[in-house]
């Protein structure tokens, strides 16, 4: 076994924002994916070298349970092949080779990995075990329709599944534990993959497994304080826990108190799904530790569609050291890339993409190199601080990686090398985007959106992943409120976001269940509010208002809590609620600008957007200019004479008070900024 390149630094790895600290070394979270078992071992070294030549300090790989597990020779049960029979499966040799090539390793051992493997990398004997399978309302298996075989997905609540996953970790630990940093190159471990009911995440798809129903009851017990409390919240009579069954449809015919009880039951069910996933992650992380795989930071990745998914990013972030979003976007999905990144920038301490799609699986809508590169730069523009290129090296059931399956760089590798070099050169992981406005993302309303979704297995998360929004197919009735809250919160946030963008004011979204510290440091917080709201959310808003933050809420001051019982919410700052319909959002933003003297750095005209990132001591270092519209030349106001070097094209532009930037349609350009006295000799002057 080869020692890791940095074995001389004896400290355990730890995460500090978007930086991995290995003793006195600071490693940005920039990695690339290579699937060792899918490549002949003779190509491993070339592929690793080319991955490193992209500028990536870390190689990422899954470890697939279903690939390593093999039937026991001459007997019942299973064994694990880590290279004894098939050299492609020699994980230990691969990790040692990575260390030899001075690469660190980010290992993702599942148990679920997807990776376009049949059965998502889980052994078929596990998937076919009835004790493992998730259950539909009628007790049937829950089938996932992915090629090249549909399969019944496991239940995250199943004790049998949890136990078998733990056994896999123990088998893996024999290879990996001795190679954890500093003895070996493994510096990060991902726990499971893209939690969210395996994309079968409609409100009533799952999980009605006995173990899940037992967890549902314990969840209700804790949430409402015993069976009587549950019955009171649901406005039902429960003689026993068995009667407090999970909902399997939405009864929209109810009126009055019965309807209130139904809504509470439905939103409880939505909240339970989040709780189930967070609990599963906690369980697996503990099993990793018990298997001897503790001691390195843990991560989790959330698939596209998190706005409508049955997970809570803050809930998952509480269970592992780092949570990130996966990005598979076409360049035209500018709005989605922006919204998702701004959500992470506000909600977690280190926005990071565990999977930044470079290419795509064959069964996705094709993505071009332009799509992948534009997505990466747009996400960085709005605050992404690190990423894992997925895939860096091509493989079976994939197209479009910058390095081919024999370890040779493709033409696209040049652009990636330039982008990564610029991120490294500028210390992008430590730069900051000055943001003074936060938009709160109220989780209680998001749950209502999930609960009112009408299209079953084509879930809100899938709609969002397909380019729509999670509200697209929610029922539109008001459910006894003044307006359909399940739609209004999303639309009101979008209106304010639009007005902020038009005014060149940077902002982020903060999930209402993020730690209180995530709400600190803003001048203005906007929080949509209707008849009902979480008391905790409004108490925090009141505290923030008392501390001098300009808190804007509305269109209603809520008078109900989440169980739809009367509750006297404080009006933050004693203010009246605000409406953001139509042009009001623009007037509101204009008021914020006046009231708080909000800066509009590098302002330009819509639809062009700019984002500037500064060093910790305040020097503007990187400017992104994005054009979600047709080709044009953007005029950008400069705070001082500036030279701007395009990191991909290499050309430099300069200006005294204005920078003119030619933009193709859908373009995103990243510039490294220098004040003019330090401009490059070949810089081309702008027209102003």
């Amino acid at each position, binding site marked *: 076994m080869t020692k890791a390149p940095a074995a001389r630094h004896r400290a355990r790895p730890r995460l500090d924002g978007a930086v991995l600290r290995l003793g006195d070394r600071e490693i940005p979270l920039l990695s690339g994916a290579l699937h060792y078992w899918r490549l002949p071992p003779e190509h491993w070294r070339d592929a690793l070298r080319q991955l490193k030549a992209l500028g990536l300090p870390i190689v990422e790989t899954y470890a697939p349970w279903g690939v390593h597990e093999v039937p026991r020779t001459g007997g019942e049960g299973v064994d694990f092949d880590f290279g004894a029979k098939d050299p492609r499966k020699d994980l230990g040799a691969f990790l040692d080779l990575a260390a030899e090539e001075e690469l660190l390793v980010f290992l993702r051992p599942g148990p679920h990995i997807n990776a376009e493997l049949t059965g998502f990398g889980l052994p078929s004997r596990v998937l*076919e075990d009835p004790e493992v399978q998730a259950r539909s309302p009628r007790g049937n*298996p*829950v089938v996932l329709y992915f090629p090249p075989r549909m399969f*019944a997905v496991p239940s995250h609540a199943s004790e049998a599944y949890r136990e078998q996953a733990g056994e896999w970790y123990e088998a893996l630990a024999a290879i990996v534990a001795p190679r954890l940093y500093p003895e070996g190159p493994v510096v990060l471990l991902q726990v499971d993959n893209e939690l969210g009911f395996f994309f079968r995440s*409609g409100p009533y798809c799952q999980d009605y497994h006995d173990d899940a129903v037992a967890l549902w009851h314990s969840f209700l017990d804790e949430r409402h304080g015993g069976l009587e409390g549950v019955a009171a919240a649901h406005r039902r009579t429960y003689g026993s826990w068995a009667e407090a069954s999970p909902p399997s449809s939405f009864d929209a015919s109810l009126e009055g108190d019965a309807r209130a009880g139904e809504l509470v039951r439905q939103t409880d069910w939505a909240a339970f799904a989040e709780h189930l996933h967070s609990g599963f992650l906690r369980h697996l992380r503990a099993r990793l530790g018990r298997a001897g795989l503790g001691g390195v930071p843990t991560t989790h990745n959330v698939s596209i569609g998190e706005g409508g998914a049955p997970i809570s990013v803050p809930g998952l972030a509480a269970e592992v050291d780092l949570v990130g979003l996966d990005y598979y976007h076409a360049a035209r999905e500018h709005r989605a890339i922006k919204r998702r990144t701004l959500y992470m920038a506000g909600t977690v301490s280190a926005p990071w993409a565990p999977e930044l799609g470079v290419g795509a699986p064959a069964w996705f809508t094709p993505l071009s190199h332009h799509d992948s590169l534009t997505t990466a730069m747009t996400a960085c523009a709005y605050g992404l601080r690190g990423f894992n290129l997925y895939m860096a090296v091509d493989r079976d059931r994939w197209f479009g990686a910058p390095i081919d399956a024999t370890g040779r760089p493709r033409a696209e590798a040049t652009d990636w090398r330039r982008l990564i070099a610029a991120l490294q050169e500028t210390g992008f992981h430590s730069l900051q985007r000055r943001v003074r406005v936060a938009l709160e993302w109220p989780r209680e309303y998001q749950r209502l959106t999930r609960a009112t979704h009408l299209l*079953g297995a084509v879930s809100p998360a899938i709609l969002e992943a397909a380019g729509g929004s999670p509200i*697209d197919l929610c029922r539109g*009735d008001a459910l006894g409120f003044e307006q359909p809250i399940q739609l209004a919160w999303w639309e009101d946030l979008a209106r304010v976001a639009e007005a902020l963008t038009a005014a060149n004011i940077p902002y982020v979204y903060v999930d209402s269940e993020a730690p209180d510290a995530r709400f600190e440091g803003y001048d203005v917080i906007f929080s949509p509010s209707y008849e009902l709201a979480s008391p905790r959310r409004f108490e925090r808003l009141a505290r923030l208002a008392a501390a001098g933050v300009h808190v804007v809420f509305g269109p209603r001051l809520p008078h109900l809590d989440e169980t739809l019982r009367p509750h006297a919410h404080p009006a933050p700052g004693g203010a009246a609620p605000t409406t953001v319909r139509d042009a009001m959002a623009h007037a509101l933003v204009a008021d914020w600008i006046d009231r708080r003297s909000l800066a509009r750095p590098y302002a330009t005209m819509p639809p062009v957007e700019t984002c500037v990132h500064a060093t910790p001591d305040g020097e503007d270092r990187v400017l992104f200019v994005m054009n979600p519209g047709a080709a044009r030349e953007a005029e950008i106001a400069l705070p001082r004479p500036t030279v701007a070097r395009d990191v991909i094209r290499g050309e430099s532009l300069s200006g005294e008070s204005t920078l003119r930037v030619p933009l193709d349609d*859908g373009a995103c350009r990243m510039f490294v900024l220098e004040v003019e006295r330090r401009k490059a000799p070949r810089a081309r002057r702008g027209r102003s």
Partner: protein
Amino acid sequence: MISANLRFEGFDATSWTNLVSLFMPGLPDRLRRAPDPSDAPAADLGGRASGSVLVVVDEAGQVLAATHSQRGRIRELGGTTLELGSDAPLVALAARCGAHRVLALREGVMEELAERLALRFRADDTYVAQILETFRAARELEAAGQLRLWPNPLQNVPLPSAQTLGRAVDVLLPDGRAAVMALWDGDLWTALVLRRRHGEIDLVAGPELLTRWTGPLGGDWRRDYRVMVDAVARMVAPVHVGLFAETPTVRGLLREADAGAWAREVAVRNVVMTPMPRAFMAALGADAVRGVGKASARALGGLDVPKLFGSFVPIVREVRARVSHARSVTEILGFDPLAVLGAALRRDGGDVDDGEAGDTPEF
């Protein structure tokens, strides 16, 4: 029919997009579509006809929610009703919403579909069998008035069993054999190699892998194809059928409704088919015969059409006479897959579908 151990490799982003766009002509435009103009809720109705509308109604037909695939949620339909008993209300809705297609579903139908599929699910079924079950269950729900799609390109297409489909594939690509297609647009534009083993497609390979097998090519497609066939035979399996052409030719043929079009292009070697198995030869012959019938009514590019197409007639007669098992795919399936594909492609590309369904070669 699709192996659980399927290997898919050898494409970069461009060659894969090119291949997919061959069968989805509207794809390049969709990929280049401008981003949404605004973060704020978009205007609901009207606009240029594009995309699809998905609408959910309750038992009484009242619209509960509707969305446009490109413009998002449609608010103005709340409270209106939509009958699923015929196409007419869906046609009207498509016009009102500026959409090419409408899928209307009764509330709860997706849950019902999932339960029906779960009951029929067999882990050891092939993916094609699993997909056919999905279609079958959806048709049951359609027949029960629970969902309706307009236009429905498969409306009159009988659903074959997986076994029947397997027999059709036997004609196109027998077990243990490979098929290869390469298209040029100046340079190699895309390529596809398929291999069938143990009854299932287990390899889908792209141009990067193909050119690794061939080594450097000369650059003249009318010569390079031979090298490709040899390389695939050497590296993958004996080649059952090969199709080589310039991209615009094949793109046109896939959307071509005219009888005789395929036979004409093969005859003048704008399309090279080699090897050409007997079933394909018979299909082209039949296509040629139909083309002769139509050619008397119009000129086709100055070619001596009857003479050209007539050359296929003996082939057809010979094949039919000597090969009793040379049943066409159309005979096996009970519908003409190329006709269905052509109609779908014309629709996807925005063309009016006024061709005759039976005018493409019956494979």
